[in-house]
């Protein structure tokens, strides 16, 4: 169990670090997008590369931030029933559903998304827009993001098992994400 918990801690650390990247994508995207609007209006200049980089960063926010959000229990739930469960029941529900829902779903999408990247990389696909960007880096974000999500799912499973077997304290605090 100790080894597994160490593995889980390592995964959590990785997700957190990658999440920090996603956090900075927010600021960079906002700056670039505002800059695009200003330069188009003030200077009449507009560049497809700069327009595209903003949604590359958006993709980064989502795919790199998703696992960190899972670690923080930040994916929204309908807490009609869940909110009234005891911590032990919540841990059971999380364990079973992560095994049955999250892992297979994320695994399948991960498996399906690899060719998307691989094809793009193989042919050196670029944007159809003049001066557009290479496509494979953003497509790589899909398998990377879903891969990290699967890892984080594994970490959550380990933590729930540890909790249920008494190797770890209950910490099923779920706070609805602010909107």
């Amino acid at each position, binding site marked *: 169990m100790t080894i597994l918990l160490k593995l889980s801690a390592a995964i959590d650390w990785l997700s957190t670090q990658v999440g920090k990247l996603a956090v900075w994508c927010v600021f960079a995207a906002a700056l670039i997008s505002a800059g695009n609007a200003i330069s188009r209006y003030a200077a009449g200049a507009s560049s497809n590369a700069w327009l595209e980089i903003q949604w590359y960063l958006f993709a980064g926010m989502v795919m790199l931030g998703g696992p960190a959000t899972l670690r923080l229990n930040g994916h929204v739930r309908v807490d009609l029933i869940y909110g009234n469960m005891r911590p032990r029941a919540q841990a059971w529900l999380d364990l079973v559903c992560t095994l049955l829902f999250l892992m297979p779903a994320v695994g399948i999408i991960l498996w399906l998304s690899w060719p998307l990247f691989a094809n793009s990389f193989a042919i050196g696909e670029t944007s159809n827009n003049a001066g557009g960007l290479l496509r494979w880096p953003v497509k790589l974000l899909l398998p990377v993001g879903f891969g990290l999500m699967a890892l984080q799912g594994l970490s959550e499973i380990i933590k729930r098992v540890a909790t249920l077997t008494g190797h770890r304290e209950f910490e099923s605090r779920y706070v609805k994400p602010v*909107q």
Partner: protein
Amino acid sequence: MSGFDLMAPLMFAGLIVFVLIGYPVAFSLAAVGLGFGFVAIELGYFPFHLLAALPDRVYGILSNELLLAIPFFTFMGAILERCGLAEDLLEGFGQLFGPLRGGLSYAVILVGAVLGAITGTVAASVIAMGLISLPAMMRYGYNTRHATGVIAASGTITQLIPPSLVLVVLADQIGAPVGDMYAGAIGPSIVQVLLFAGFVALVSIFRPKDVPALPPEARTLKGTKLAWTCVRGMVPSLVLIFLVLGTILLGVATPTEAGALGAIGALALAALHRRLSYRLMRESMDSTMRITAMVIFILIGSNVFSLTFRGVDGDLWIEGMLTDLPGGVVGFLVAVNLLVFVLAFFLDFFEIAFIIIPLLAPVAKTLGIDLVWFGVLLGTNMQTSFMHPPFGFALFYLRGIAPPSIRSSDIYWGAIPWVILQLIMVGLIIAFPELVTAFIETHEAADPTKVQIELPTVDDAPAVIEIK
């Protein structure tokens, strides 16, 4: 497809069960979609390569420029919440209207509307007003239920007043231009503010003790000092409103860029108030990243679901049910609004928007309903999802910051008159569609959102829609 007819209803039932048990919605949706997807492939509904289109859909979501508005507006709201603008506004207007009965309520409604025109998130408004106005209202003897109700409702109005996040998301799901949705929402926003103010006026006539005027000793600001406080709140607000809403309506910026401009503007404002710090930046970016990831993952999940759902002709099933309703278009509208109202008790607006709306929009289109009008109508209705006890977000935030002396039951009961006012607004929009449509014609200007990056759409669902 006879004999297989049960598949879509079964899938829908599975959706309800698995979403309700309380596992994160994004993954429940994806799992239901994939689980039923494999069964459907086995039963010969569609070939496997339909599911292979999934990554393309995810990629399509990530490259959707409009959805980028979600983090920008969230970021802007998160900064505004922490930068002191609401404080200035409330202080000024509170003192200005204070001598009137119900004055603090009017101030809250007005400030709610102004904040709503700047940002697109409820949290920013409700938290700021709850922290500043609620203690003042309590101190001067306002009825608790009235005070909490007006704050929650005025914070929620943010979702109707452009540039609202709800309208962005709805526009994306319905397939209507955001600029038109914003223009269409202007009329209903104004009427909704007037409805709220009218209600406060009625309360001040019939139950004057609930909303007393400020006593003279509480009116600390007078003359030029009062004027200065109001100006200090209003000028930055107007600048921000222009930066966001003005640039969209003039066609200078896309809604997404306007959101980015607003976020940068909010940072500048925070700097002006000497509140800009690394911590403020970090916290705002942190919560923005989490909300964005959370929301987009729901959207990814719901796409997985709808891919299979359409593969088993679920869209036709829903369409058949909804078009056969008695009363034609009116019957459909009543049913839809009831459905959204009821769902709003336990689903958030993102969940409604991503799961339910894609099922409804094609039906509305078939029935010849104006989609922009339909979107604004749903947006108005979805306001109630923020106000429903016990899970409404506005109430939830208010509970978080209200002093313990205020009971949760007061917050819940206090919300009810305002939910009714919101429903009256829904009725008004159905009765007088001109409220929405009148504002759209005036602005059919070029919409720069539409000329953007070409998505490599691999359109999945083997175009099923044939109307018999």
